[in-house]
């Protein structure tokens, strides 16, 4: 047993070292998060346009939203996209990962094929699918006509079909979600399946009582990230809105609308207010999901948590 002084000195030295190690992050946190968050809150109560001096206009920006058609339209587009895409991608991704988790010859090759689109840029994928979905000469409609559909949808050029087209394009990269489920599946202990089989559980029961509960933390993670990323749809909308003006309004996603207000219309105050609405909505969504998560997410006993 040594005296106390050197121990506490070692502790203090370790503490000082820790904050040195943390310093890049702390600097980054202050410069790129805290200052901008406070600044954007203040800006959202001004009419700043970068050139003229900002005026304090109170909650006018927030009041203006109520009658701003572009704002409501962008909410509608984004919600429509969430409703169509999130359940679809989650279910397809899950089913796909179940198949990809089978031990079959050549599976690595199939996995590679399926994951490739998810590493490609939104711009590149959008360019490819704009061409494929060209209503008059594109290959997709050519196939549809060949199988007897006389008037296939005009996809991105039809306001009613524009959002479903983006959802369809996203399906091409659904393997990216499957990768996360696959990781979750591979973390499930084999013993659980063996025990379930010994108890006479069939494949459906094994999915219902082993796979699904063990995968709920992964599902929670995917649900959270896909809801947040739905607010961040930009690349696709930017490329498409630029290339066909007609669908520009039909694809006015939340982030694109905010970007336009800030960088095209120079309404930085109003755009900051839009950003704050985005933060609040994201926070409400995240908190609601976490609140209800206890009811359907199953956590294994984790001794590390007890420390």
């Amino acid at each position, binding site marked *: 047993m040594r005296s106390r002084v050197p121990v506490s000195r070692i502790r203090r*030295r*370790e503490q000082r*070292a*820790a*904050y040195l*190690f*943390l310093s*890049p*992050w702390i600097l*980054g*946190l202050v410069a790129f*998060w805290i200052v*901008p968050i406070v600044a*954007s809150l203040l*800006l959202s109560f001004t009419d700043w346009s970068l050139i003229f001096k900002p005026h304090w206009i109170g909650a006018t920006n927030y009041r203006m939203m109520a009658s701003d058609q572009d704002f409501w339209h962008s909410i509608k587009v984004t919600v429509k996209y969430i409703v169509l895409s999130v359940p679809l991608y989650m279910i397809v991704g899950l089913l796909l990962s179940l*198949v990809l988790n089978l*031990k*079959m010859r050549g599976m690595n090759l*199939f996995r*590679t094929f399926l994951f*490739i689109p998810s*590493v*490609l*840029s*939104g711009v*590149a994928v*959008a*360019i*490819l699918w*704009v061409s494929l979905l060209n209503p008059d*000469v594109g*290959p997709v409609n*050519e196939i549809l006509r060949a199988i007897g559909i006389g008037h296939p949808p005009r996809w991105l050029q039809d306001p009613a079909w524009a959002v479903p087209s983006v959802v369809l394009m996203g399906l*091409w990269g659904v393997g990216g979600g499957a*990768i*996360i489920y*696959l*990781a*979750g599946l591979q*973390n499930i202990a084999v*013993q659980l*399946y*063996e025990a379930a089989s010994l108890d006479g559980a*069939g*494949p459906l029961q094994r999915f219902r009582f082993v796979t699904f509960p063990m995968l709920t*933390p992964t599902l929670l993670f995917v649900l959270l990230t896909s809801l*947040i990323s739905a*607010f*961040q749809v*930009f*690349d696709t909308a930017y*490329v498409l809105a630029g290339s066909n003006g007609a669908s520009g309004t039909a694809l006015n996603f939340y982030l694109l609308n905010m*970007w336009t207000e*800030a*960088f095209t219309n120079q309404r*930085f105050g109003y755009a900051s207010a839009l*950003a*704050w609405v985005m*933060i609040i909505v*994201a926070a409400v969504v995240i908190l609601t999901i976490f609140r209800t998560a206890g009811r359907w997410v199953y956590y294994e006993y984790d001794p590390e948590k007890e420390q």
Partner: protein
Amino acid sequence: MAQVDAISTADAIQEATATEAVPRKSRRARKTGKWRPRRVLFLTVMYILLITVSAFILLPASWMLTAALKPDLQPVFTIPTQWYPSQFWDWANFSRVLLGSLSFLHYTLNTSIIVAGNILGILISCSLVAFAFARLRFRGSKPLFSVVIITMLIPWQALMVPQFIMFFKIGWYGTYLPLIVPSFGGNAFFIFLIRQYMRTIPRELDDAARVDGLNSWQIFWRIILPLSTPVLTVCAVFTFISSWNDLLGPIIYLDKQQSFTLSVALANLVTRAGTPWNLLMAANLLSMIPCILVFFFAQKKLIGGIASVGLKG
């Protein structure tokens, strides 16, 4: 009959999902068991499914290559659609895109500078910060780590306006600095990923090193960092892909054509009418190749990296 169906499919699935934990002998024994035809049927259905899905992925890519290889006067859209290259092999289209008036080689170099800067920044900052959270005892470690988690959930885009104003005010608009410097402040997701990995390295190593008189920096640099190369590779690859593909950042901060990145140049090609389809597709394909190559080489580590995090906190 339905009962038999269920049991045999169960067997087939079980066999297919069996892992190393099941002794090899029993697997082989089951293969020659009663329900073999069922297993064949199950596997056939699965293969058909997988091939169909792969076709959905690969045919568009192959169509793009076909279009990229066509000479200027050949239509890209044909009836019936040419899904794979057969008649035309104009590989020169690629060098025209890279070196010709579209000067995509220049944009590729611009993008590479930003990507390299980001990888450097992320690796330095995130490994330092993750080391502190994973291996050092200090006051405030828990609340600070919850701040990391919170910043992971706030979309960066919500802060783009004030960040833009800040960088504009200090005269960084039009330079690569706003696109590179923030990465030196760390990224919550990568800090989380590296910290999870570093926690799995045995503590005894640190203790032994401290007894030998090594300080925290030496433990980090000589012991923990070399052992963390797998997770650092994963972070480098993710950073490569996200920063190579980034559109929003460059579109906000870059104002001169000569400093554009690939994604900005590509997006402009589409917006600007009159770009020939074959060159557009060649440019598009070229922009994809680095990410595909990186993915091929890092594939195993990427999947393992995601699995190692466990998403359990």
